[in-house]
């Protein structure tokens, strides 16, 4: 019996790899989704999720079926109702980890939504001074991440603060009030979180996340000041929503690309689109927008694109009906990913 030389085998193996690489687009970055709402949707309101082939699956599996390989989870300290607290977040993080999805934890350092000019500290921290607040940030960060680690999970990225264009943990960490004197405070708070992250997951990347990725000058102002104040970060995160900016999706992607290039060039740090979204009612344009955004992300060394709460459909959340989800009432009558999600 003839034996084939090793060289031929290796050559065939390399050729096969090359062929595989050529038929499947290489996505350098994470294809992500923030799915923080899903446990509440399922447990509280009995929402169900189906794949595009009408197969009932858990929400994270459905997301995985359209190419989502990373999950972002927001965490609040003592939220009303308990959803998105530490226990709920750990449950979701471990579920994603079990599926092989990478995990991002998004610390709001609040009992409720923290974004833009709403950055209310948790009630339990209300009267803390800067030093106490720094300790609290470290403790909360470490506590959540350690719980995930103890559960056998891991975390790839951690956001220290959410959309903190004006700072976080107001008023101690607020910036932009004139003179920018509070950037040292903000840097102290961010560094407390940064050090706590590295203490639990040394290889996790720490993201500082701002809204409005289309506004490059906002990013320059913020990161110039943060850097000058000694703030530490590994990744520059941004949100990108044509709906909120009022721009066409083409202009949105153009502007976000300019920001990505500038941030990389100016600070030598990679970027990441930590939140993106489009009108649920227009899946065709949603797909065009996401495809262009992912291409821009890959072309500019960005670490990935996360769709924010795509699993929303129907009247969720009860009372406000968020209209930038990417699931639709499919043929089963329950939620399934719309065509926009096929961009991932």
């Amino acid at each position: 019996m003839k034996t084939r030389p090793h060289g031929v085998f290796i050559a065939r193996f390399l050729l096969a790899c090359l062929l595989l690489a050529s038929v499947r687009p290489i996505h350098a970055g994470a294809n992500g989704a923030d799915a923080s709402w899903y446990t509440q949707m399922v447990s509280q309101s009995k929402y169900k999720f189906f794949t595009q082939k009408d197969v009932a699956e858990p929400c994270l599996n459905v997301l995985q079926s359209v190419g989502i390989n990373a999950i972002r989870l927001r965490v609040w300290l003592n939220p009303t109702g308990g959803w998105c607290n530490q226990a709920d977040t750990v449950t979701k993080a471990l579920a994603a980890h079990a599926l092989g999805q990478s995990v991002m934890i998004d610390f709001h350092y609040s009992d409720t939504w923290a974004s833009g000019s709403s950055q209310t500290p948790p009630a339990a921290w209300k009267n803390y001074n800067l030093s106490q607040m720094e300790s609290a940030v470290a403790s909360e960060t470490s506590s959540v991440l350690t719980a995930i680690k103890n559960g056998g999970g891991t975390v790839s990225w951690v956001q220290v603060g959410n959309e903190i264009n004006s700072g976080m943990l107001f008023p101690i960490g607020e910036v932009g009030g004139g003179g920018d004197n509070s950037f040292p405070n903000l840097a102290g708070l961010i560094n407390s979180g940064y050090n706590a992250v590295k203490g639990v997951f040394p290889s996790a990347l720490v993201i500082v996340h701002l809204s409005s990725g289309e506004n490059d000058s906002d990013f320059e102002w913020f990161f110039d000041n943060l850097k000058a104040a000694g703030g530490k970060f590994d990744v520059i995160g941004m949100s990108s929503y044509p709906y909120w900016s009022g721009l066409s999706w083409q202009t949105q992607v153009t502007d976000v690309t300019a920001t990505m290039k500038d941030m990389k060039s100016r600070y030598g740090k990679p970027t990441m689109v930590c939140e993106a979204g489009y009108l649920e009612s227009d899946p065709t344009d949603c797909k065009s927008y996401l495809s262009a955004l992912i291409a821009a992300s890959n072309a500019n060394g960005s670490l990935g694109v996360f769709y924010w709460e795509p699993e929303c459909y129907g009247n969720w959340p009860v009372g406000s009906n968020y209209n930038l989800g990417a699931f639709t009432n499919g043929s089963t009558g329950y939620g399934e990913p719309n065509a926009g999600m096929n961009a991932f």
Partner: protein
Amino acid sequence: MPKTPPPPRRPRAAPWLAGLAAAALLALPLATERIARRGDAGAAGLRAAPHPARRPARQRAAAVQDPVAPLAPFAGVDAEDHLDGLRDDPAYALAWHLQQQRIIERQYGHAIASLNLPDAESGKLFELLTARREAVADGRDAAQELGIVGPEAKLAVRQPVEALTEEIKQLVGPAAYYGRIELAPTISTCAGRLQDNVGAGLAAQGEPLTTDQLYSLAADYVGAVYSPAASAGPQDPDIAGGLTPQYRDFLARASATLTAAQLDAFHAFLAEQGKGAADPGASSSARSPQ
């Protein structure tokens, strides 16, 4: 057109505080003054220059043909966009409003002038763009006062902004809106950076770019390097020339407006940049923080 700046769209100060506001205007280190202190002569010129839309059409046309010597100072003014935290101070309301006008002038001034609208419409467009910028801060504050957070707070900002955008589209028409206005801030920023990175050297060599050339180049650059189509194509520079396909596309577009010497300067600079990671349309990392 009024010769003096219009009053704040939503006055926050009582009339008797007008004097205080005027005093604040004199005392506060506004954008142009800060830049002037840094020795940027071009920046100092910004304060004296009225908005192009407020100038007679003939004067406006002449202005855009001028060489770029006193070009608006793009680098270094970004920090001045971020003083919203002071706007609720009654003494600062007028100063804040004037600051918003300056920002709109910097971002949209050339685009507005390029539309060649009648003076009344130019003025209206300028006011609508300023109002839209201020509506963002208004909506944000209103949401905060009412305790609205999360996605609903973003809605509170979006609704007034959307209404003003519709008004702007109706005023200039959809083609001009999407063709000239929507990308104007990015083009304006890019123009400043191209001037910093290449234009200044050309001026020193006796080959200055005109304002129109610069904005035309910036529009070409944004289209060739930042647009979705640019990201969709290959990104690696060719081995021999060091130019990415995007830079080659930009130079092809730019060749229509540049002299041979200017084109050579851009080619040399882009080839050099193409070898490294830096984007010449991006800001300089060497710039000191505000």
